[in-house]
């Protein structure tokens, strides 16, 4: 294969405006799911209920938008549902000592059944629900930026939720490192006893973190149901809650890391769609790629971390 062909392939399948747009779009729910995993993992909680929280978010976004004929009401309803599910999750696992993983699995199974049931009970539909009354989040053209060539095309023209996600990445970073609550949250995650003896209310912070994770996840649901398609489909979270855990691990528990890891996942997704259209190879291998990549990355990161630690120790040893 000579270089021109390779460049051609790269341009056609990877680096073109449509792909980059697709990448940023498809990464949005993953970023939000990643932040959901991040905020809990930094508080020392393994939250695998993201999947269920996203499902509820997606359903309530559609329901809110349908009944109020207003997309923002949908967003608000979804966020409220996220906070409530998060609160219940926190209540049961933190207050009533339910096993946190079991609780997470149970919530995911429960959310699956509950959203299917609710669609049938409220909308008398099975499988999916779409209606003209559902208002979606429309694309917003960013002033000034939209007129810049290429960059304008890549960065402008997304729905509110995409921009909100980018802002949330920045806000979460600020929160973690620049505010007392962020400091407390990280202290609780790393050494809860230390935090406790200083009068920090550990259960309250964890409670708040789980509720916040519910809100992040619900926004991922909003993107899925209102950000693009304006419809609700059964099981539309499609594993993004779990992918969120992957990108959080991949991104080292840092918001910006989550963002970058998510764009990588988004890119793989977009390429997958393209290649599927071109019938070059079975799409299943492309779909498998992010998960394999996460495993490989985890292994490489851990190995590198161990090596770095060893190097640092060796350094220390020399200084002594």
């Amino acid at each position, binding site marked *: 294969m000579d270089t021109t062909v390779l460049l051609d392939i790269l341009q056609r399948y990877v680096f073109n405006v449509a792909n980059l747009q697709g990448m940023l779009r498809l990464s949005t729910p993953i970023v939000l799911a990643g932040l959901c995993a991040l905020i809990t993992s930094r508080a020392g909680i*393994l939250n*695998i209920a993201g999947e269920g929280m996203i499902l509820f978010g997606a359903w309530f976004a559609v329901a809110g938008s349908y009944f109020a004929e207003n997309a923002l009401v949908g967003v608000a309803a979804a966020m409220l549902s996220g906070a409530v599910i998060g609160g219940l999750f926190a209540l*049961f696992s933190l*207050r*009533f*000592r*339910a*096993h946190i*993983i*079991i*609780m997470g*699995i*149970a919530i*995911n*199974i*429960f959310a*699956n*059944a*509950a959203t*299917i*049931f609710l669609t*049938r*009970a409220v909308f008398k539909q099975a499988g999916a629900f779409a209606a003209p009354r559902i208002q979606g989040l429309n694309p917003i053209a960013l002033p000034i930026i939209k007129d810049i060539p290429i960059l304008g095309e890549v960065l402008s023209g997304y729905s509110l939720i995409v921009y909100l996600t980018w802002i949330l990445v920045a806000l979460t970073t600020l929160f973690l490192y620049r505010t007392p609550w962020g400091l407390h949250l990280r202290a609780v995650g790393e050494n809860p006893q230390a935090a406790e003896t200083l009068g920090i209310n550990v259960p309250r912070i964890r409670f708040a973190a789980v509720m916040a994770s519910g809100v992040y996840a619900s926004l991922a649901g909003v993107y899925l149901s209102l950000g693009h398609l304006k419809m609700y489909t059964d099981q539309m979270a499609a*594993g993004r809650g*779990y992918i969120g*855990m*992957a990108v959080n*691990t991949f991104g080292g528990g840092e918001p910006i890391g989550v963002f970058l890891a998510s764009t990588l996942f988004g890119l793989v997704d977009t390429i997958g769609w393209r290649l599927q259209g071109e019938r070059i190879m*079975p799409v*299943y*291998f492309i*779909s*498998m790629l992010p*998960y*394999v990549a*996460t*495993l490989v990355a*985890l*292994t490489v990161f*851990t*190995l590198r971390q*161990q090596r770095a630690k060893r190097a640092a120790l060796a350094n220390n040893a020399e200084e002594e």
Partner: protein
Amino acid sequence: MTSKMGTLQRHLRGAFQRSIGIVLSILAGVFVGSLIMIWYKQNPVEIYTLLLKGAVGSQRSIFIAMQRATPLIFTAIASTIAFRTGVFNIGVEGQFFIGAICGTFVGYAFALPTIIHLPLTLLAGFLGGAAWAYFPTIMRQKLGISEIITTIMTNYIATHLISYLTNYPMRASPTTTETPPVQATTRLPQFIELTRHWAKPLGKGTQAHFGIFIALAVVAIVYFIFKRTKLGYELRMVGISFPFSEFGGIHLDRAFIGGMLISGGIAGLGGIVEILGVWREYKNLFATGFGFRGNLASLLGRQSVIGSLVAALFYGAMEAGALGLEWAAGIPRQLIDIVIGLIIFFMAAEGMWDFVKRIKWVRAPEAARKSTQELEV
């Protein structure tokens, strides 16, 4: 030394303590479920009656419950083994499917006498599941990477891998997404197939099959392993404490990896048994969620072998009831899934029933329990 009488009383008290939480959880779940049913403009009493009938009301419903419970017994036992070895095997889901596809391949690709073919097929299922558990196990053991994340990843990889296999190399014909049927020599007979000509056939209108006997045999074997064998002792000790086991001379890697491989293997065995008994060919993602529900059943059974069996049977009965409800009254079976979910929430929430322990008779007089931390103070 405690007297026989005292021991008995303690057992009774323990049993009461354990069961009171379960009973209250079921009541609470049923109650909240009733509220939902009323909101759905249904009469809860009628629905629960139908549910019970669907679960255990007739010979047919019992056989349906048995069929639903069979794969859950495997996945619950698989989770329990992992739990007892100190691992949370969320990967049971993926191992179940991989075991199924591996076994299916052996089941259709070879023509052998039953006496060889059936065990070989089951073995292929076991090995497939074990192999799928291998990588997360190694990553945890050698690199300390949480098995929760890695097994979630391997679950998805399994899903996509199998989609590929059933859509390309293993499909029966270019127009289907199923594998060819397994040979008759490997099929596990369904009760109805054997008793069709009886005056009163067993399991009429159900696909309940002989896999239940394999499931019960696995329960018995695993119970025996834990109680009576070196391996079982090693698994339990490794599950309780790595440093202690290592210091005592137990080969950590062997016990830990062994435990996980057996866990994965039993999950895979569950997958192929489900194929051989019910489906007879691999339909893409023929039965999702058995793994996760197995995880739940194991915890509800308090991570004991017998408890897992009971929980899996209960789960199976509820599902049978839900199906019956949908057939008989057109009520979405998800409504019952919701009730089961609620019951699980309440059961898992041990702290919710703490007040029970404050009742005088229930409270043990000399509950001498100290944590490591308190001992060190």
